[in-house]
């Protein structure tokens, strides 16, 4: 299984986790002005989308904790590719089940596919929100174009994954390939935004 890593806006968390202490960890990089607030909002939004791409595998529970704590925006928080990674891994474990029969496992796969479809749709919504930001992105020149292209690519790949899952056409191999492509897109986005964020400091 591909191992994902996420980064916050300030790239301070090398573990790839969105910590519960996230609001306190935000350094006062941006002054509290209308523009600064907008910048902070955009940064927050991007952090969620980008972190949704990233995961070290099985951290969906901590995500759920944050959601119940209401720390993050609910709609963005539904964007959980960590959940995707977990569901994908669960799908893989079914391949080596020794006791349950194929008909039981087929139903289990259907349930996993439904969960994967829901997570992928959430990821797709998150990518759309980035695209809807328009000129508010804290990027300039060709970086902005590149970033938006990657967001569109993320939206498209999440859509493909969700559609495959909804139609029951998702095999573990397909899942791994699609997650790998998503991971590549995420990493490209992370890299681009980190580079750009560095120049903003």
């Amino acid at each position, binding site marked *: 299984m591909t191992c994902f890593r996420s980064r916050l806006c300030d790239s301070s968390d090398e573990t790839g986790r969105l910590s519960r202490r996230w609001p306190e960890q935000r350094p006062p990089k941006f002054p509290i002005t209308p523009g600064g607030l907008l910048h902070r909002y955009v940064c927050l939004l991007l952090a969620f989308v980008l972190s949704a791409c990233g995961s070290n595998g099985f951290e969906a529970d901590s995500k759920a904790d944050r959601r119940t704590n209401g720390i993050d925006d609910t709609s963005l928080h539904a964007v959980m590719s960590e959940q995707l990674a*977990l569901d994908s891994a669960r799908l893989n474990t079914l391949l080596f089940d020794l006791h349950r029969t194929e008909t039981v496992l087929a139903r289990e796969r259907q349930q996993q596919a439904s969960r994967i479809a829901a997570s992928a749709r959430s990821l797709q919504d998150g990518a759309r929100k980035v695209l809807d930001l328009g000129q508010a992105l804290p990027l300039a020149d060709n970086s902005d174009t590149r970033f938006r292209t990657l967001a569109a690519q993320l939206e498209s790949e999440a859509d493909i994954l969700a559609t495959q899952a909804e139609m029951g056409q998702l095999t573990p191999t397909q899942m791994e390939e699609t997650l790998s492509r998503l991971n590549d897109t995420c990493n490209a986005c992370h890299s681009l935004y980190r580079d750009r964020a560095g120049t903003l400091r």
Partner: protein
Amino acid sequence: MIPDRAPGNRALLLTLLLGLLLTPDQSQAAEPPDLSMGGFFRLQLLSGGISADRNRSGDSELWIPDIPVTPQPTSNWKPVQVHARESRLWVRAVQETPLGQLEALVEGDLDADRHDGHDPRLRHAYLILGPLLVGQTYTTFTNTSALADIDAGIAVGNVVTRHRLIRWQQSLGTGSSFSLALEDSLNRLHFSGTNSIVSTGDRRPPDLVMRFDRNGDWGNASVSLLLREITTTEPPGPGIHTDTELGSALSFAGRIATGGLDNLRFMFNYGDALARYSTLSTFADASVTAAGQVRLTATHSGLLAWQHFWAPRWRSTLALSYSRADPHRSTSGKLSRESRSGHANLIWTPTQRVSLGIEYLYGWRSLINGDSGNLDRLQLTTRINF
């Protein structure tokens, strides 16, 4: 012609009739059924204690009555045993019918001959139409998702019986369901003055099983109730009448998610009708006294297994299991009273089709007369899915 003498045979007959009735009329050019096939090749290499069985069947799998007891064999370590008897093949067909989706599954392995052969054996053969299942498969009494992921396949406290049954499973919404089943009514009896257990089968009401299941993101849990009639079908001796007792058993089982892919599996069973369903039929359902009276065997068994994923492709299971029977005092002292097993493994799945595992197994059993013995075993397992 299938003799109409056992509920299980009637179940198979009903399966065939149901299949014929629901087969679409070919003249209407119906869509062919979706057919899929799969399985796995499973090669096991074992090294460890020599079993008590004269034919050495217990050398290649954990068979509780074959765990040697005092006096131990002089040479109690067998270098290597290799077999692929647990390789499996299944065929599944799904067909749309006027009554809904009809699903059929047939699965077999190579474990019919537990000695040195690799003869084919039928594991499952059933039809599913909506909530109705008819055919041969795991008893409704067991929760198969609670069984431990161990290479030995079974732990002593497992309920893993497969037999013929008719099951109705009704969804209750929000992850809950209720099942009601009529199942094969085989009895295993010990007759006073003998040292063995005898299986008796026909002319009895089927076993009745009820089960409630609850599923959620946290895992699943189930409670099952089993009702059985245990009887001597024929007078055990001249001037002695047959006798009948009604027995019952309860099972509480489940799999609880403990973070990520890790999970805790458990199964606790208790009752005086449990014996044939648990511990690979090691215990007798009842003892028949010299006067012909049926005395049920109170039995309890349990399993606790923790599965941990070190990484997505590396996993381990630590499983502890036990079972104990309290038979009537007329029962032979040479039959088993108690057994325990412990399992620890490490399994690597380098690709989605291959797994390699190593497992240590410890088995122990004691007899009614107090003798006891144990068995250690190390086994390497390779599995290739297809």
